[in-house]
């Protein structure tokens, strides 16, 4: 089966996120003065071929741990894993 997987990666809480800070600094100039704690993360999306959903999840978890994130500074979460028997993501572009 083919699974569409979404992984989010963020800097750990407590680490200053310089990009988030820059965005936070720019928003009041546009009139939004009610914004705080902006964090910028990464979103990785991929197709994984696996016999079942659990196997795909285990594999994506390991990918996220070993490559997609750096555990020293980042945390990740696997946002979704959905069976994708239909159109491939790349075909939509």
């Amino acid at each position, binding site marked *: 089966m083919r699974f569409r997987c979404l992984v989010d990666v963020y800097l750990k809480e*407590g680490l200053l996120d310089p*990009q988030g800070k820059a965005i936070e600094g720019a928003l009041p100039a546009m009139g939004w003065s009610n914004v705080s704690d902006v964090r910028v993360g990464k979103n990785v999306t991929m197709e994984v071929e696996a016999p079942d959903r659990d196997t795909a999840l285990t594999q994506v978890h390991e990918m996220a741990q070993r490559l997609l994130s750096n555990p*020293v500074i980042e945390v990740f979460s696997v946002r979704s894993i959905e069976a994708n028997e239909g159109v491939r993501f790349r075909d939509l572009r």
Partner: protein
Amino acid sequence: MTIVPRIGVVIFPGSLDDRDALRAVRAMGGEGVPLWHAERDLAGVDAVILPGGFSYGDYLRTGAIARFAPIMDQVRAFADRGGPVVGICNGFQILCEAGLLPGALIRNRQLRFVCRWVDVRVETTLSPLTAGLVPGEVLRVPVKHGEGQFVVSREELERIDGEGLVVFRYCAPDGSLDEAANPNGSADAIAGVRNGAGNVVGLMPHPEHAVDPDVGATGGQPMFESLLSSALARV
């Protein structure tokens, strides 16, 4: 017959400072040996330098892809045997990603690329770059990076400091710590760290750009002298 230490410089796709590193090794009396990232052999060198640059375009995270290059298995094995390994700038980022050094390097606090001379204070002599130096000694070398802010958790920072793993700190010319001298917002003004065994060291500043008096300060000379003697100790 004089024994000349052979210093390997790994070239990744996107490395920039490999030639300056090789040139600095030669200028200081060593033999520079270029090592291609796709090789699985260190050609019998006595020390390894991972040079600066933007390996793999800094994609994902700086150093994140380069750490999986074929030659890195050999670099890790060499480090495990006690071989001197030096990571400069992108090389430092690669060593952190590979888990050979503590901490990580993220975007500079002020969000700007920084390119200027800095002064760094030697904090320990237990590293291949500082073996012949004196703690407290101040060396002038350049930095040029967008992602050089050294970060670790609070507990890890205490451990690194407590175990004497900090090798260099950004400082004022007189050696005093001054936040204005910290070019990227690094935790505790840390410019370079070593591993527990003391044979792997990484730093953001570029000693290889500071060995020729014709182009500026020469704070890199004593670091390369130290590296050559650390390498010789293994010949």
